[in-house]
């Protein structure tokens, strides 16, 4: 049974004077532990698709089943719980909270989870430090985002996505502004998490080489997807 089943997902934006079909009829089944890459021109609907999978917005039509339950049936709190427990996001753009240190930014997801469930996982201080070490920022644990380079901020955001032990990582161009070496380090980190802990990845990237290392490769054009390769 697939972890995630998208059935004919479409998203239409009503802009002034025109309707934009950002995603048009995507059907896809994702198995647990898969590493999926998506390439595609800017504006082809990649971010929109990730948003729908992550429960950040609702599709105009179609349905998403997660572990056989319909995400579309969840209310606002239900979606928040789904994101808090199942999903790890790596956003396309800078996403750290400026008033929090690197470590606090990592602890934030657990803070919200703790508010929901007092027995949940402690405050995760050690886990945050461990994850920051794994992305090469052992010496920046207590640094504020403003004190970090763009690439370092990006790595903090990458580490944060793993804090809640997610089943799926939704990564939107996560290595876009990293140098080649760091990008390679991060990709290795992803693959390790994928292999060792069975974390499922759906990663949007412009880097063909990285894309080709996924277990399944898709491309998107004008909201439609096409499977390019399968390992």
């Amino acid at each position: 049974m697939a972890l995630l089943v998208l059935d004919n997902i479409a998203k239409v934006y009503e802009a002034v004077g025109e309707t934009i079909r950002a995603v048009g009829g995507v059907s896809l089944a994702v198995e647990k532990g898969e590493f999926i890459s998506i390439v595609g021109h800017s504006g082809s609907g990649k971010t929109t698709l990730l948003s729908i999978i992550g429960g950040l917005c609702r599709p105009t039509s179609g349905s998403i089943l997660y572990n056989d339950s319909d995400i579309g049936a969840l209310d606002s709190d239900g979606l928040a719980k789904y994101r808090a427990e199942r999903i790890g996001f790596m956003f396309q753009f800078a996403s750290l909270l400026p008033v929090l240190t690197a470590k606090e930014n990592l602890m934030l997801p657990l803070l919200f989870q703790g508010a929901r469930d007092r027995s949940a996982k402690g405050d995760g201080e050690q886990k945050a430090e461990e994850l920051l070490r794994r992305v090469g920022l052992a010496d920046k644990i207590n640094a504020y985002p403003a004190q970090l380079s763009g690439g370092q901020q990006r790595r903090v955001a990458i580490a944060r996505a793993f804090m809640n032990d997610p089943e799926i990582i939704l990564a939107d161009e996560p290595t876009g502004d990293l140098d080649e070496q760091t990008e390679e380090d991060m990709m290795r980190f992803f693959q390790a998490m994928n292999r060792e802990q069975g974390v499922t990845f759906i990663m949007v990237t412009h880097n063909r080489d990285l894309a080709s290392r996924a277990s399944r490769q898709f491309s998107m054009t004008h909201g439609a997807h096409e499977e390019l390769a399968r390992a």
Partner: protein
Amino acid sequence: MKNRFSLFSFALKNIRRKAVRSTMLASAIMLLTASIVFAVSFITRVHSGISLMTSRLGADIMVVPTGSRGAAEEVLLENKVKSFYMDGSVLDRVRNIEGVEEVTAQTYLVTLSALCCSVPESIVVAFDQKSDFIVRPWLTEKLGRPLKKGEAIVGHESAFNITVGLVEIDSMLFGNVFRMVGVLDKTGTGLDNAIFISDENITDILRSGTAGIKPGQVSIAFVKVRKGYDPKLVANAVENNILEADAVMRKDIGKRIIQTLRDVSGIFTAAVVLAALLSGFLAWTVFSAVANERAREVGIMRAIGARESDVVRLFLWEVFLIGIAGSVLGIIGGTALSVMLARSFILLKDLAGDLGIAVRALIAVAGLIGGVAVCVIGALSPLRRIKKLEPLGAMKEA
């Protein structure tokens, strides 16, 4: 130990990030709370002062010369130095009115001129020791016997005026030498500033011609009403039967002050309402700006698992912290102001009794609730907007 990371510490960091703005809002709340605390303290103090003093006077009705009601209250409540007289025959006419149990008279002499007296300007109360029921309770506490002719006992405050602790020393009053035999305890009435003598001395004082009264005159008659009689009816009977006298019921004593107070209260209320509107508006402005500035941050928090209620709680912490900080400062300021101004405000200075700790604490709590509530109410509509911010904002460029 390091501070644990919590919604509270997160909120604190958010407040500090716009320190000037947060301080401005807190200052407005401070102003509001200070004015609430000050106004309520002031009004409570005047009311409790008046009721304390009327209960100390121990008379049901006060009979004064027609038109002298205000002057009498000024003497009794505000320890102003005033004189007013009516003919002593009024006493017997009052005694004859149905429902009157006891009547006693006091005559107020003003030590106006430095020629007649060796004390600063004050009131000398000559009272009839046989019928007296006003001064006696104060007197027995201190002296344990009636005053003799040529003796005077001084009120608690006037002891300071004469010379601190100066008793058993002779003073010149209206050309007569008096021996100061004691100091009364504080009664909380205007009479704390008076000097008390027996009315047996009046003949001698009249002879000196320095007191400005005519033989047989008195200033006030205090009346006790017989059990079962309505003081209001007795007072009406006094007014109807004795044209040259006004009757003031115990519960109406101080009404003039309370009326003045009503105007003051109006001003206070206007100030408090204005401060509340200002603070509420400022809270609205600040948190509207916050809603705009931090829309994307809220989106990110929502995207990584925060519920709407988590977001609301975070921002409520911010509202509360600013509100509480402002209110606490306001309580301190308002209380300090009311203590300080009590000494310079004529209306308060001369009234007895300060507010107790319990009352002050109660007023502080009221101030805290008022200050925080206005902050929360002002921030309510921006908070509702923040609550509804979409998590999708996280996916967009800043």
